[in-house]
């Protein structure tokens, strides 16, 4: 199983998903993000999915849960870089990503977070 690295920049955690995600990797990511927020006191999490080719209902639910869980640690999650084909498919699938905010790219995501750190 490949593990998704988490980088810390100031009070923000940056997660850039570069692998074709299997379910276990996403589940592991959820735990890793929780531990890193608790350890660092990060106020924001940016999840970059520019390289992610599909988001199905399981991956979508996990991303949503990372958002809800971060909020319990007083951190805000922004999902950035979603591909147009992924967005269209998510809507048709009927998936709403509750718990996360979205921004077009990492720069805009950081700007969204900077209002509160």
């Amino acid at each position: 199983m490949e593990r998704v690295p988490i980088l810390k920049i100031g009070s923000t955690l940056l997660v850039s998903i570069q692998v074709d995600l299997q379910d276990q990797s996403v589940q592991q990511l959820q735990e890793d993000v929780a531990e890193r927020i608790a350890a660092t006191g990060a106020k924001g999490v940016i999840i970059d999915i520019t390289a992610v080719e599909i988001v199905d209902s399981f991956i979508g639910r996990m991303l949503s849960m990372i958002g809800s869980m971060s909020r319990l640690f007083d951190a805000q999650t922004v999902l950035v870089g979603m591909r147009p084909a992924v967005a269209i498919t998510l809507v048709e699938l009927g998936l709403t990503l509750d718990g996360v905010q979205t921004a077009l790219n990492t720069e805009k995501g950081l700007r969204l977070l900077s209002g509160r750190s």
Partner: protein
Amino acid sequence: MDELPIRAGDDVVRVRQQVRAVAGGAGMSLIDQTKVVTAASELARNTLVHGGGGAARIEQVTNARGKPGIRVSFADSGPGIPDVDLALTDGWTTGGGMGLGLSGARRLVDEFSLTTEAGAGTTVVMTKWAR
């Protein structure tokens, strides 16, 4: 035709990659490729989690008017689905998910059939045509 086993989480990833390769070879648009790969991901996971593992058969097909497409069948010999209509309803779940897997996959493709028998397993066949 390719037959891929579905026995572990990384097999689901391999099914996705192979479906994308065949869908691309059939000349499907990026959006249609993404839809059929997403549907395949849902169904492969069902085969693994609910069917206890099985196999996926992936083939490029051509319809009567010469239009290319992709057909994927997922077969397991798991417990079967007791109530298919219920299982295809949005929001119905046994796995603790959101219940969008089966119903969502059906929406993402052009043809979808499900045969199941209690104690004997489930087979789902889906087809999507290039536009």
